[in-house]
């Protein structure tokens, strides 16, 4: 089953079906009925569709797209701005009130968040990925906290209790993601820990001397 999904043709069909399902009125209205469903299920799923779809593209095409955009950093910047927009309460309200904005959401999240993130991820390396993760997690926690602490109703379309509930879910999700990311550092293979201390020492950058440095 999983092997079949990994085949591009099958994968694209499954993603297309999921996309249509999310856009179909029954699921769309039920997810958008609550702030948590809208922010924490529908929006991430749309971005995830773009991410996975990009991964199904041939590697050469991904590389060409990456080069055309100027490398990983511009794509990460694009992801940050596009995803930040859809975190704003005003954007959620607009999406519910205007079919045009709703359509923009369904197009921009896969294309401007998921796809560029998948492209950039290939070249980010462990430090860049770690930075994106820790930044995302702390921002998710802070956003959740802001929703909990907000003195006013931030969305016209959702009540204060929904806002608080979404805030708490974001904080909990941030904690879970952080714990999961940390735990992932403690498992896995690779490396070669069995070498002795002397073998582990990298060769010195310059020839060593025994009797002190030369002085000019």
């Amino acid at each position, binding site marked *: 089953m999983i092997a079949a999904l990994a085949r591009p043709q099958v994968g694209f069909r499954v993603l297309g079906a999921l996309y249509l399902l999310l856009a179909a009125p029954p699921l769309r209205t039920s997810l958008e009925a609550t702030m948590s469903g809208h922010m924490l299920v529908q929006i991430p799923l749309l971005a995830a569709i773009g991410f996975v779809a990009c991964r199904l593209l041939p590697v050469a095409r991904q590389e060409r797209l990456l080069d055309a955009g100027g490398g990983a950093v511009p794509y990460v910047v694009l992801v940050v701005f596009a995803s930040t927009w859809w975190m704003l309460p005003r954007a959620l309200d607009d999406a519910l009130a205007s079919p045009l904005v709703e359509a923009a959401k369904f197009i921009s999240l896969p294309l401007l968040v998921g796809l560029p993130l998948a492209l950039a991820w290939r070249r980010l390396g462990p430090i860049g990925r770690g*930075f994106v993760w820790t930044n995302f997690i702390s921002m998710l*926690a802070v956003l959740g906290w802001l929703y909990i602490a*907000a*003195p006013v109703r931030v969305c016209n379309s959702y009540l204060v209790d929904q806002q608080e509930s979404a805030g708490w879910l974001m904080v909990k999700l941030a904690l879970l993601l952080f714990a999961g990311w940390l735990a992932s550092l403690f498992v896995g*293979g690779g490396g070669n*820990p069995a070498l002795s201390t002397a073998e582990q020492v*990298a060769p010195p950058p310059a020839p060593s001397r025994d009797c002190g440095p030369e002085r000019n």
Partner: protein
Amino acid sequence: MATYTYEHIPDQGAKAGVLAYLATSAVVLLLMMVFGLLMRLEQAQWISIGAIRFYELMTLHGAGMVGIAAIAGASIMWHFLRQYVDLSSRIFVANLVLFLVGVVMILGSVLLGHFHGAWTFLYPLPGKSMGLWSPGAAALFMGGLLVIGVGFLLLHLDIARALVARYGNFSRALGWPQLFGHDDGKAPPPTVVASAMVTVVNVIGLVVGASILAMMLVNLYVPEFDIDPLLAKGMIYFFGHIFINATIYMAVIGVYEILPRYTQRPWKSNKVFLASWTASTLMVMFIFPHHLLMDFAFPKWMLIMGHIIGYLNTVPILVVTGYGALMIVYRSGIRWDMGSKLLFLSLFGWAAGAMPAFIDGTITVNYVMHNTLWVPGHFHTYLLLGMVTMVFGFMYYLGKPSHEHDDHLIDRIAFWLFTSSVLGFTMSFLYSGKESVARRYAAHLPEWVPYDRIASVFAVLVIASALVFIGRFFARIGLARHDYQRAPVARSVAA
């Protein structure tokens, strides 16, 4: 049972980045020491700078010393860790650049914006200055801390990357296969174990710190976004306590690496050593409530946890390291020089400095001692005679002209002057605490002034001896880059 033998590791000189870190540390350390002296002189009523200037200096002294301890500790860790794993020099330098940017922001906030809410920036003080500083000044201070935090986060992510690339995962870098299974004597060296521990706890602490800083910045401009003050305090102390604890865990790597070169005995990564570092990896994250014991509104379980774990965490690494150092030195025929003497002294400073915290961590004692100078007595002993002394030892080691070079008389005098004056200085704090002298007061009662005057005299002597150490480091900075044997061969080996 695994056997351990000393394997000689070629002595490498410091990279330019390490020396830049140490030079920055030395300069800022001296400046912060002078700020500290000015505060003591004000309390001693020998100068009159006024309360506002006093609190500005206190804010700079606190934030500056924590920051510089972290920079100096990171330089020691990076210098030795890069001999085992492939670290990025660019990230290392980027951290220093971000640190300096953060320092400039903090200096601007305090000296130009007159922010003086202490390094703890406890909510809601930064936003409620009663006109003494602007929201912009508070934002600049907290923004500076954020920038410094981002730099350290990058550094730790790079260390995490390098450890995972070399050892596969953190479990192996912490030596868990040897700790929980058969000890085959192939556990990672102490430097790797300590670096892995510091990376884990600092990444967690920095993310928590960044979260509360971001939240307080929002609150600064939109006060309606209210924050629970107790939660804010808990998060600030969680971050701050981990960060300052990590500085000594980074610096102690110098002891693990350098003392064995003097005695030609290995520092063993045995089960006890690995267990102590694993235990502290967990416990260091749960001891911060011992700073909150006076906040009765905190949940009782948290305060009890702080009390118990505060007791427990004093023991593992400190005892294992102290005992390990004694065993390495005992009958080794070590030839003492400034580097080895300072490193050995630092372990005494660490142990002696932990004791007042151990006592203060007792809830009933804490109620009467925590807001006195007893606590500054604790952390000045721990940091000045422990952490900073490790850094001085490392500086002397790097700059030693050759392994047979004898120390100058002035260095030997400075060593004993430093030791005695730091003891006098810290004992003045501790005795003042015992006499119930309140901490963080710019003006002192007449009965307290004699202690302040004694402390001021000792502070001058501490600065004088530190000047000798730092002057010697700068005089020999050119030698520090070269690869050659620095540690004299122990008599037992030479014979």
